[in-house]
């Protein structure tokens, strides 16, 4: 079985907080540095390591799309407090 876990472009070696992405920028989740309860909920919601995300709206709330295209599929709103603790590798 072939996996899709390898990112195509991995420009940034070091992960940055989700809040540093600009609108429309894509990335891959590195880890979620939240309290353990929050972390397991976020993972179950789809914010798991290596998941591909796109920033749809910055600020409070920060809105990301999990399906890759803003608007479609699964959109998750995150309080800034949580978003700043989610680390991502930015795609180019």
């Amino acid at each position, binding site marked *: 079985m072939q996996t899709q876990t390898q990112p195509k472009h991995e420009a940034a070696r070091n992960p940055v907080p989700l809040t540093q992405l600009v609108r429309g920028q894509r990335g891959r989740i590195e880890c979620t540095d939240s309290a353990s309860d929050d972390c397991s*909920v976020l993972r179950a919601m*789809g914010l798991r390591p290596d998941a591909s995300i796109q920033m749809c709206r910055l600020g409070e709330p920060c809105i990301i799309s999990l399906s890759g295209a803003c608007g479609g599929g699964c959109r998750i709103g995150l309080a800034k407090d949580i978003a700043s603790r989610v680390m991502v590798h930015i795609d180019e």
Partner: protein
Amino acid sequence: MPTPTASQIVPIRRIIAVLGNPNVGKTTLFNRIAGIRAKTANFPGTTQDARVAHVRLGTQQHAEIESVLIDLPGIYSLHLDLSESKVCAAVLAGTAAPAGEESHIPDALLVVIDATNLMRNLSIVGESLAKRLPTVVAVNMIDAARRRGIHIDPDKLSECLGCPVVLCSARTGEGIEHLTAALSNANVPDRSAPTDQLAIERWANDIYAIVSMPADQSTGQSTDDKLTDRLDRAFTHPVLGIVSFVLVMTGFFWVIFKLAAYPMDWIDLWFGSAGSWVGHILPPGAVHDLAVDGIIAGVGGTVIFLPQICLLFFLLAMLEGTGYLARAAFVIDRAMRPFGLSGHAFVPLLSSHACAIPGIMATRAIPDRRDRLATILVAPFMSCTARIPVYVLLTTILFPDRPSMQALAFTLCYVLGASAGLLTSLLFRSTILRGKSRPMALELPSYRIPDLKSALLLTLDRGYIFLKKAGTLIVAISIVLWWMGAYPRQPERKVQLIAQMSNELSPEELKQAYASMREQESAMQSELDIELARAQARESFLGRIGSTIQPIFAPLGYDRQLTVGVLASFAAREVFVSTMAVQIAGTDEVDNEGVLNSIAAATRDDGSPVFTPATSWSLLVFYVLASLCLPTLVVTAKEAGGWKWALLQLGWMSFVAYTGAFIVYQTLTTIGA
């Protein structure tokens, strides 16, 4: 083997649990299969409930199959430390069942997943497969997926999962027949999934890669996507978001208050007629008074709120169906976070403006326990509709013939209640419920046209639950309150006369004498009746208790009559107006302008006016802040998980109300108002 006859057919009852992530259209699918046969049932000992329906899905061999469909709460995982996840896990293990059903390991599982978000949804499928139960996977919203250009191969997915996979759309009805057929023949999957979370995530990624061909992103966003993106940015914008929120909420309350007024008038009229009809049929006496003043008046006073409660739930369901509420929760989260409440508290507090009971019940959706408790404790501070008659009376007394000032005072009451709630939350969150409010992480469902059928079914269900409560608990409270106000009986001349006459006269003469006495009474509109009613109010158990504890309320400016009004309100606050009317005017027909005027002009035992400006303001503040609703306390105890929370709520609200009213009265008296 001979074929069994109809009488030999043994019915089989299969339990089918419906499982899935939130916002995958699970309930719409459930309603599509179950129709109006479903009912809501609570999981005993928890705050979770499920919809349950008994349906016949088909036949297997020669036995008719009755299936019990259980629509479980939407969850992201069976293994989270959340109440809804624990309930679902317990149902699958056969250790929990909705009230009225037997705990039993389900005979089949229907896992509903969202075609537009397959990868994430596959995790719950993996967790379900590990249960080794006959399973069918419904890939819902396939129509929306097609519009986005997402293609899913059901055969490949079925092969990977080892169980039947049906592409369907609960909204259009596509694939539902296939789904019910697959459910009646479900078997244990011939493949399994890993049990470790990391391994399940990898497994989901691998399957997704095989079965899905996502939309070509180079072609740009679809029209749906662009619209969603624009609406989201507007609805969560710091300024536009608040403006749209205010507009939506104004419309929401306008509809509730305006539209509900018509059916409320009809109900009022109906109970009024029922009261007079029963009053004419029953002979005067205790049974007559119990039926008319206790049961009919008590139930009527509660059922009158049914239209508001139904409209509230209907509009909430419709709003939720549009997807807007999740966005509104974020807008309100910014405002409430400094007070220790999260955006999750928005719907409960909004509902509490109609009635605190559905508001407190809606706190079940708040994931964090401390957030939930704080919301339950502050919900009754929101001005509910039962306070409105009291606000109307007092603002009219304070500002006669000045409607603009009445409206301003009315608004101030709402603001005072909400502010007291926020400050209470701040206090509790820094003491007994210490800790920051959990920051919000919420899935924002796609914008949709709400499903009218689901909203109507939910409304019917909630209305029924409310009526059931009105028919049990509230009847009991009304009877107790009536008894305390009506006993001990004052010597009634009428009764004595009838007893005397019945010994002396023939039945025919007695009838005539009774009729002529009635005519006389109505012609005289007897002063005696009013005096008797006032004496009854004064000398009843409630009146005596009022006289005894009046000194406690004296610093707030309340005399014996007002104290009795406040005491009677402990069962339900709207009772205040009718209690005052009975004490002062000797009638509870408060619609009569003359009665309102006589309440306003009422005097104390020493001849001074009951309602001075200071007393009226003090009463108004007291009614905004006090916990004067026994049913709310019962619901608080149930939802918060113990009477200590209900007692805390009662104690704290009484303290705040007393202190507030004391400060207002003493200040206004000092400055000579």
